[in-house]
């Protein structure tokens, strides 16, 4: 005699069937159960596709309704949700888009941007330093303090490298204008963060993204300058690196990306 199915076994079989209609139904289940499972399967897919549509609004506009929906369905089937929050359904959707829209690589970059903006939307609140506060703190710094300076950034400030002008694409969609012609260009940087309550992004140089990564890895301002100088012993190149790093720091202060400074003697 077959042992009765435990609750854990039943839930696994049920979930398998919700995720994949080809999965075997528990023994003894008939057409009535199949019809019910069909409703749950439809609810699951609709909920996740709608969540993707809400998260990747611009990606959907750019890709077009039908292709986007197909990509979303592919993603939901290939990557079943493993998180209690439906917001996480968008994790990895940029990779799905990279494969699905291989002839239009800008779609995957747009999806990645929207995913990072979603992350920024609900990241911890923070209070960035004002320009005046920054000036007050650094006004009396000696050279050694500048070189040892550690920079704390707003949470979830993210950077990446892209090959398309996402700003132009975004702006055109915001204005309801025709899609601008896009072509794959030189690699450039992009920063994403939350300004007040609104996620935002800015196209920057790839060098600025490299500096961001260095700061996030815990490097000091002196380390970053040395990195930008590329190991050169030339005073001119060293000075140029300091100027470039200082310019980046200044832009970050103006954009409200820095929350604290810790000056340690280098």
């Amino acid at each position, binding site marked *: 005699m077959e042992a009765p199915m*435990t*609750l854990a076994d039943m839930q696994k079989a049920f*979930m398998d069937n919700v*995720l994949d209609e080809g999965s075997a139904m528990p023994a*003894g289940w008939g057409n009535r159960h199949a019809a019910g499972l069909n409703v749950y399967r439809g609810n699951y897919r609709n909920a996740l596709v709608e969540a993707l549509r809400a998260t990747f609004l611009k990606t959907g506009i750019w890709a077009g309704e039908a292709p986007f929906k197909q990509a979303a369905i592919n993603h939901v089937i290939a990557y079943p949700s*493993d998180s*209690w929050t439906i917001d996480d359904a968008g994790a990895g959707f940029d990779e799905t888009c990279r494969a699905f829209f291989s002839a239009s690589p800008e779609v995957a970059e747009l999806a990645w941007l929207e995913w990072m903006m979603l992350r920024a*939307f609900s990241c911890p609140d923070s209070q960035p330093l004002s320009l005046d506060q920054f000036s007050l703190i650094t006004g009396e710094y000696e050279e050694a303090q500048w070189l040892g300076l550690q920079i704390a950034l707003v949470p979830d400030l993210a950077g990446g490298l892209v090959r398309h002008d996402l700003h132009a694409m975004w702006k055109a969609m915001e204005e309801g204008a025709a899609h601008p012609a896009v072509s794959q260009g030189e690699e450039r940087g992009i920063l994403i963060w939350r300004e007040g309550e609104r996620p935002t992004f800015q196209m920057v140089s790839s060098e600025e993204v490299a500096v961001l990564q260095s700061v996030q890895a815990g490097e000091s301002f002196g380390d970053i300058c040395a990195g930008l100088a590329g190991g050169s012993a030339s005073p001119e190149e060293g000075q140029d690196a300091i100027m470039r790093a200082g310019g980046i720091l200044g832009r970050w202060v103006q954009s409200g990306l820095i929350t604290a400074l810790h000056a340690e003697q280098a």
Partner: protein
Amino acid sequence: MTDRIAPFAGFGLGLRRTHFDDFLSGDVPVDFVEVISENYMVDGGRMLRILDEVREKHPVIIHGVSMSIGSAGGLDADYLARLKQLERRIDPLWVSDHLCWTRTSAHNSHDLLPLPLTGEALDVVCANIDRAQDALGRPMLFENPSSYLTFPQDELTEWEFLAAMAQRTGCYLLLDVNNIFVSARNHGFSEDDYLGGLPLDRVRQIHLAGHTRGETDQDIIIDTHDHDVCDDVWALYAKACAMLAATNVPVATMIERDGNIPPLPELLSELDKARAVSAGALEPA
């Protein structure tokens, strides 16, 4: 853990994004609002700021959809910690979720999946409720779900299951009248038997919502929350109000709308109808 929750009577709405501006800028005539907990179990940003502001004006109920109280594998510790964080921040009137399961150790359904109504499932549900209530330090409310299939292994009716669950754990019940209607039609049980079999003194809140009917009477009715409350559900609500009045415990009523969300005045008008139906049900025949 406090084993009782304060009685509360009133009429409220689910707070949805479409109506954020209405709730922030005006004096919306509701006695409470209910929010979907998971939407606010975040680290920061606009959603929490809005909830904080709404909380200054109205009592708030946090209503979850992902606790998965029926999971054989137990509760998700991260989920519980975040829910507790939200509960501490908001000091809600009540914390509620559904009699269902939504996750296995590997996957999450984001839909309220049905439980077999067995002794084993009852043991699992009660153990999970005990853990959740201990973690939160307060009793919770659990809602009867709509369902689209029943299990050959069922040993109890849904109302017997709910009654045993409430008796064993001290939890309270959130009675979704629309869900009773939907499940009764889908599975062929009597709505009167359902209401009559519940421990009505444990009911603290009622949900009203719309659903989607199939093209024929044989089609499964789906609990979509995207229509007005239908006449059949209003009639069942009136019956429930009359029966609940006999317990002398105040009950809160809420209109739950998740799709095709109309402008706020339309929902307020539907809430007025709930007030009228409730008052009418309490008048002597």
